[in-house]
């Protein structure tokens, strides 16, 4: 089997990620374990968004909702003294899937601008819900007493083990995402994106397929939320802030929509750029103090002129579109 250039890049990127902990241990820069773990967590979230936005054509402007639901599922169980990881992560994915089913069942009835704004508004609703429930910290958020416990299996408090857990989940989701996209189910979703009337004409009603994809993406992103709260050990309603949804969309675009490797490249590009612009040692004060100004301009520039994303820089073997 000949592998395409993009697959090689993906394999190289994963090998590189696997090599981060020993390399940083050599260089004595533990900060980078933290940074790349965050990159991988956001890559999982972006990957789930790519599934519905890239392949399904559903421009969800509320994907941060599931990060929040997943994080709160872990946080709330922890709040009541339940630290069992299987239970916490299971609830995170399950609750996110349920919320996605509720939001999706109404949103998918609409399309275009309506869909964008409805997903945004529902997320905003959850955001205000998070702010107004004082029991779980309200506006200030709450600390996670301890990270999810997996018996003696793995200790998430140990940064490197946690790092490899995240890498493992990323790997599983990359494979899972690839399998979904290339299954019959995935073909129907892509068909509905490119031509809805024809899809109907050959006998598929797009609604249940889209809803199923929406729920799967929600559950995946919920698990990313559970990872994120274990990463930060703190959660606030800001997890669900609408700017977070915008950032996830940007990661997908930056990396290259409708590609397997795109979300990973996008999350890495986004967070590394942010880290770089904020870096005090690297850049003069007028940059790092107002890094969002430049970040905004980069965003506009990428959307206007580099729409196909980082993945398009990799030479692909003739065939345009997905790999």
């Amino acid at each position, binding site marked *: 089997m000949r592998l395409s250039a993009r697959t090689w890049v993906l394999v190289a990127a994963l090998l590189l990620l696997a090599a981060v902990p020993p390399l940083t241990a050599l260089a004595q820069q533990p900060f980078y374990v933290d940074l790349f773990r965050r990159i991988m967590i956001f890559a999982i979230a972006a990957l789930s968004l790519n599934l519905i*936005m890239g392949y399904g054509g559903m*421009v969800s*402007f509320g994907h941060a909702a599931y990060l929040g639901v997943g994080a709160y599922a872990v946080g709330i169980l922890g709040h009541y003294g339940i630290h069992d990881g299987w239970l916490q992560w299971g609830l995170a994915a399950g609750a996110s899937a349920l919320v996605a089913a509720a939001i999706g069942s*109404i949103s998918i*009835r*609409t399309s*275009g*601008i*309506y869909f*964008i*704004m*409805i997903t*945004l*508004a*529902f997320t*905003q*609703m959850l955001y*205000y*819900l998070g*702010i*107004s*429930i*004082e*029991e779980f910290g309200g506006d200030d958020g709450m600390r996670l007493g301890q990270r999810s416990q997996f018996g003696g299996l793995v200790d998430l408090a140990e940064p490197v083990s946690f790092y490899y857990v995240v890498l493992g989940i990323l790997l599983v989701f990359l494979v899972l995402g690839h399998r979904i996209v290339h299954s019959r189910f995935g073909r129907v979703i892509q068909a509905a994106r490119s031509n809805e009337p024809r899809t109907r004409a050959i006998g598929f009603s797009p609604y249940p397929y889209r809803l199923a994809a929406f729920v799967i993406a929600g559950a995946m992103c919920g698990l990313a939320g559970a990872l994120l709260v274990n990463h930060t050990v703190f959660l606030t309603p800001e997890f669900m802030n*609408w*700017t977070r949804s*915008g950032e996830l*969309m*940007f990661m997908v*675009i930056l990396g290259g929509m409708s590609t397997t490797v795109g979300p990973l490249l996008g999350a890495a590009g986004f967070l590394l750029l942010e880290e770089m612009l904020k870096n005090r040692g690297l850049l003069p004060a007028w940059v790092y103090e*107002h890094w*969002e*100004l430049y*970040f*905004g*301009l*980069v*965003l*506009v520039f990428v*959307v*206007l002129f580099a*729409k196909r994303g980082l993945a398009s820089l990799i030479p692909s073997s003739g065939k345009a579109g997905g790999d």
Partner: protein
Amino acid sequence: MILVIEQTLNGLQLGVMLFLMAAGLTLVFGIMNLVNLAHGSLYMVGAYLTTFFYQQTGSFALGVLLGLAGTLVVGIVVELVALRTLYARDHLDQVLATFGLILFFNELVAILWGRTAIYASLPPALTGHVELFANLRYPLYRLLIIGIGLAVAVALWYVVARTRLGMLIRAGASNRTMVAALGVNIRLLYTIVFGFGAALAGLAGLLSGPIYVVQPGMGELILIQVFVVIVIGGIGSIRGAFAGALIVGMVDTMGRAFLKPMLATVLSPSAADTAGPALASMLIYLLMAGVLAFRPEGLFPSRGS
């Protein structure tokens, strides 16, 4: 009873404010098919410019005039430089590019005027209260906002329904290719409509300055409420924007004022204390979900394609 009337007026005031924002945004949606998140930034620019010019000149009227003109200019520049290339793009590109503009504008304002909220004062002539009838004294300034909002609504209706420009706007909303084919300069029309919407957003921003806070990011809070208004009213429809704005203004204000005491009659006080504010802040989104479940195109869908 006094409280109910007072809250009704508050709801009306929020409603007309939302309408000023929604009118411009819905026209831009309807005619150019553009999702413009940066509409909230124009609201912010209006508030800042007016406060700035009022402080510099010492005259409120002059401050308002310069603030409005300034927002108009900023809006037109943004349209010419960035948004014009976005009309032909899909919604995703529009959302992301205008999201980038929001980051840019928030940070630019923070550089120029600082990150902390600035105080937008009113001239002494507008700070008083009016005694509407016995026991009800209502702030003059809020009444003024209601008056201006309603006047703008009437003026907008006149322009859109009775003038040549309005005719072109309506034609552009239903079939822009045909309008262009008939020899209308559609680019110029777009710029005019956008500038118009920007000025209205600026007006909403400068009016809101003295009641709410003037700070970077102030536009986003109202922007999302305005989205709800437009979705409820139906995209592209001024009439829908007006109805949606009043409904959302009323529901939001009433929910915040009366939901907690109403829940306290059926729930325990502590449960009502938690559920009341939570439900109140979610109310307009629930309303929107309800409307969409029955009418996915909104209450007053525009007849264009």
